[in-house]
């Protein structure tokens, strides 16, 4: 893992290793070249997944981020290598008002379905995708469910009760047995 990390650091500018996961942060205009490089030079031919994170300050479900963030989509792919078992994630940020990015279908054939899912869940437009249509959601579904602003109907009816502690921790509750 260490030498792979060092190798990658030489080719890309913004590489971090935290919690045993390497993350390469690149600009959205370099998306295709970076992946080509990772596939050919570093031999990362296994396409694991592609997904997105919605960074926003106003959330309708869950908790808002602790520090204020600038609203954007962060698109992450995860690539790995079957022989040496190297793994890396590649992330980029794109604009939320007009989300679009190049599709990786030419480079990794497996990104086809992942991009379709990101398209319907977040509303991200993947250019040059052969068949960008919905994967999971039924026809006529309005909205993009994974956006932080998308409301969960069940939480409208009954808000989340928060952390409900049903089982005491072993050392403290000697007398707490059922």
């Amino acid at each position, binding site marked *: 893992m260490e030498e792979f990390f060092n190798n990658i650091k030489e080719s890309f500018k913004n590489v971090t290793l935290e919690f045993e*996961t390497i993350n390469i942060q690149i600009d959205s205009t370099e998306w295709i070249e970076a992946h080509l490089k990772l596939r050919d030079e570093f031999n990362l031919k296994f396409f694991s997944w592609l997904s997105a994170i919605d960074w926003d300050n106003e959330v309708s479900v869950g908790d808002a981020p602790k520090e204020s963030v600038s609203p954007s989509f962060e698109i992450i792919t*995860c690539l790995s290598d079957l022989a040496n078992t190297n793994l890396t994630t590649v992330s980029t940020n794109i604009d939320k008002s007009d989300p679009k990015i190049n599709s990786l279908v030419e480079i990794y054939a497996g990104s086809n379905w992942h991009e379709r899912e990101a398209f319907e869940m977040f509303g991200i437009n993947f250019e040059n995708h052969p068949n960008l249509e919905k994967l999971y959601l039924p026809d006529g579904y309005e909205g993009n469910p994974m956006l932080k602003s998308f409301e969960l109907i069940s939480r409208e009816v009954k808000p989340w009760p928060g952390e409900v502690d049903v089982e005491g921790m072993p050392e403290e509750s000697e007398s707490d047995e059922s």
Partner: protein
Amino acid sequence: MVNALDPQNMNRFSEASVSVEIETEDMTLNIGPQHPSTHGVLRLVAKVDGEKVHDVKPVLGYMHRGYEKLAEVRSYPQITTLVNRIDWVAGFSNEIPFIAGAERLMEIEVPERAKHIRLILTEMARISSHFVFNGAYALEVGALTPIFYAMEDRERVLDLIESVTGGRFHPNFNRIGGVKPAAGAGPTSKKNIQDLPAGFYRDTKVAMEKVIQAADQFQNLIGGNEVFKKRTKNVGVLTAETAEAYGVSGPILRASGVKSDLRTQTDYLPYDQFDYDIPVGENGDCYDRWDVRVKEMVESAKIVLQAIDSMPSGPLQAKVPKVIKVPQGRTYVRAENPKGEMGYYIVSDGGLGPYRLKVRTASFSNVSILPIMLEGALLPDLIAIMGSLDFVLGDVDR
């Protein structure tokens, strides 16, 4: 009346041809969502010409439960309950990478005994999942008897899992920092470390011996069966390059010749203490996929036998605070699920629950190669190929 013997007409009548190309149209056949062989509610819209399948378009989403959105509204222990149900055949193995990810972010050291128990239960879940595959695959190919044998042998393993965790399919046994102290073990204090039920060692040994015998029986009865071989050899061949590009993992990848097993990288479970083989296939056809899984069952049984012999003693759970808040950070944890590679990408913001949880399931990528593998196959081959991919709809649709 035309004079047939007139020489002027002879040319016309001698133009008759024997075989004329009949124009046929493809029939659109809807396989599923309700079908005996689609392992759930998978729908395939197939264009069929007689028995030949021209084009297959999978339609997913009949079982989409929105795990990633649900996870944003829940705390980590609550998500553990949810996560069992992604791949419901091998329930325990879905929890492990998620809990390991949370533990990695909190930097907790899990006690050895808990790691061993987790490993044993994961391997038992793998055995249980492969039994289901064996029985169901034989049923799809047409042999009506092996499913009963598979289910009977599987009951023993499920009984063992139930005796430890209390649940057969959805154990919900992991806690952040270790495993749950067994129900009915009395007040859990430092003195009382009796947590596995009485007779567990003996019952496990018996069950694993029977598993090895059953796998041997399957190899002889089904694998040696001429009709089965004819139905599955050279059917649905998948090359290693295609598999890699599409993200196909697990036994399917190993059957195509790639010796890659994520258990060798799983550092949060003590796989390096035991020795086991990694079965690899040659051709990448349906027979190899079946064969690899039967051999994996035997390897898992061997791992369990070694693990219960060398079980260390100690606490079952590390010290964790009462209210679990995972510090900020992100990590990707992956594990070798029975179906393939399963991973969780946890983006944590310091709250009670994750800011974003991405679930990478094995069957999603495995099913994406169906349109390629089914080119030019016959309809019974479609059933055989789908069965050999061994996917579960909860895994595909999340």
